[in-house]
């Protein structure tokens, strides 16, 4: 089957994401909410997942995480290449400001 390899990779990516998310929430919940961009309710569910449940969630043909921004401007800032290191660094901060703004508004 041509797709079995792809499905394996999706499962692996999902599993890695779920394990990382759970560890972050257990380590420092407030920080994790910001880093993951999930609500408190979702964080609670993630924190309580058993390995078996994670396996079930991960085994699917879609990814469980998705892009957090669809703003053209953020993409441009993050992908722009310039030799000027200072300008590059400022673009990174600009993108971070936009992302945090959008996150706060979406919540």
């Amino acid at each position, binding site marked *: 089957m041509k797709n079995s390899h792809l499905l394996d990779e999706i499962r692996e990516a999902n599993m890695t994401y779920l394990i990382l998310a759970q560890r972050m929430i257990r380590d420092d919940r407030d920080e994790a909410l910001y880093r993951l961009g999930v609500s408190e309710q979702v964080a609670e569910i993630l924190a309580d997942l058993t390995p078996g449940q994670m396996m079930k969630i991960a085994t699917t043909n879609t990814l469980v995480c998705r892009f957090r921004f669809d703003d053209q401007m953020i993409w441009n800032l993050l992908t722009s290449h310039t030799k000027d290191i200072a300008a590059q*660094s400022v673009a990174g901060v*600009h993108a971070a*400001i936009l992302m945090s703004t959008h996150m*706060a508004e979406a919540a």
Partner: protein
Amino acid sequence: MAPRSVIADARDVRRASELIELGARLQVLESETALSRERLLRLYKEIQGRSPPKGMLPFSTDWFITWMPNIHASLFMGIYQNVIQASELDEIDAIIKTYRLYLEQCTVTGQEIVLSLTRAWRLVKFVDAGMLRTVRCTKCTGQFVAHTHDLIEGYVCGLCHMPSRAGKTRAAAKEALANDDMPLTLRRVH
């Protein structure tokens, strides 16, 4: 006077230690904890290995409006708004968490740390007091720190509309930074 709760005391000591480690000035500690000045001084010396700097805190709201500080202040407020929205932290704990995330962001983007913890704390207080607020840039739609009474019709942020000499004062900035209330451990060495 009723005896102080041991738990509240432990919480204050934890908060004070975290704040001192991040470079807070004594005034911040005095205002955010119920610990006596003597205990705070002892704690400060134990953690930083020296006496706290004396003198007044920076008190101007204008600093937050100048180019580079404005970018950093806006980044801090962006993170802060998320942290405070997502959880039920006390304000000072939210400031500590946000400041850590801000330091991280500076490190990954290769930025100098422009905002000291004391400045960040002042910023939140200024916003609480309604002296500063965030406004939306009409170009990039990001939220940026501005004076409350500034005209914001068609506001464009310092990143969309860079002043011609922006960032050209590296040397001056470095010197200003050295005089700031930044702890040694947080200063970036060039």
